[in-house]
């Protein structure tokens, strides 16, 4: 532990975030896209915890607690939306959802 610095954790968090972002950009399946979004959120919480640990304050960690709470609520609503979308359109592939064009 003594050997790892703040920068190491931030790089890990950043790479995780970028991976999630890439997934959001390239994947077509909305469920996978949604999981990638959650991954980005997890990366952000990792950065927060790292800051909290290295700054010796508790506030970042408490913020992570709230992020997890909000993410749980968000997942529930988002999945309900995807289910509703699937019921209406019969697909969860983002290519098929181009109604916004018109």
């Amino acid at each position: 532990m003594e050997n790892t610095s703040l920068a190491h954790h931030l790089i890990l968090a950043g790479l995780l975030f970028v991976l999630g972002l890439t997934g959001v950009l390239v994947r077509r399946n909305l469920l996978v896209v949604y999981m990638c979004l959650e991954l980005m959120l997890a990366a952000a919480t990792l950065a927060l915890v790292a800051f909290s640990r290295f700054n010796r304050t508790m506030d970042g960690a408490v913020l992570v607690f709230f992020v997890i709470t909000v993410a749980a609520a968000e997942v529930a609503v988002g999945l309900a939306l995807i289910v509703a979308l699937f019921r209406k359109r019969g697909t969860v592939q983002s290519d098929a959802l181009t109604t916004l064009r018109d």
Partner: protein
Amino acid sequence: MPDGLFIFFAALTLGAALLLVVSRNAVTSAMGMILALVGVAAEFFLLDAYFLGVLQVLVYAGAVMVLFLFIIMLLDTEDATGAYPWKTAALGLATFFLLAASVLWLFHWSGAVSAVKAGSTPPELSVNPAEFTTAAKSFGRLLYTKYLLPLEIAGFLLLVALVGVVSLSKDNPETKA
């Protein structure tokens, strides 16, 4: 050279995340996601945030991912078939390396992070900071004192989400195509 455990869990997390992104099967993706979240939880442990690590495993890797798997099974979506989308993959790879390079530049090569001394809080963030402890008790104390209002709002948000989900998933005949 960083700690061996850190390297191990970092590799695990990134590998699992890669599996999540590239797998053409949604269930495999979800498995990768669970693994990645467990990896993040392990990093929390390494950062002395034991309570958050437990919470991450319980809420995220547990409840949320079970919900995801449940929905994947329920919708029973077809796997991606046909020719491998090389063009998209190449675009994704390019995006990833571009962004990853910028991350490395920002956190490592620019030297901005290592210039900050450990424990030195920027002045604007040092308003009434809470002392860092590893005890779960300190979370409770903070949540019911300094962060009481956000806690209430979060509780209310959960209620709203609950109501919203019920209303969204009601079998409304109008939403059927």
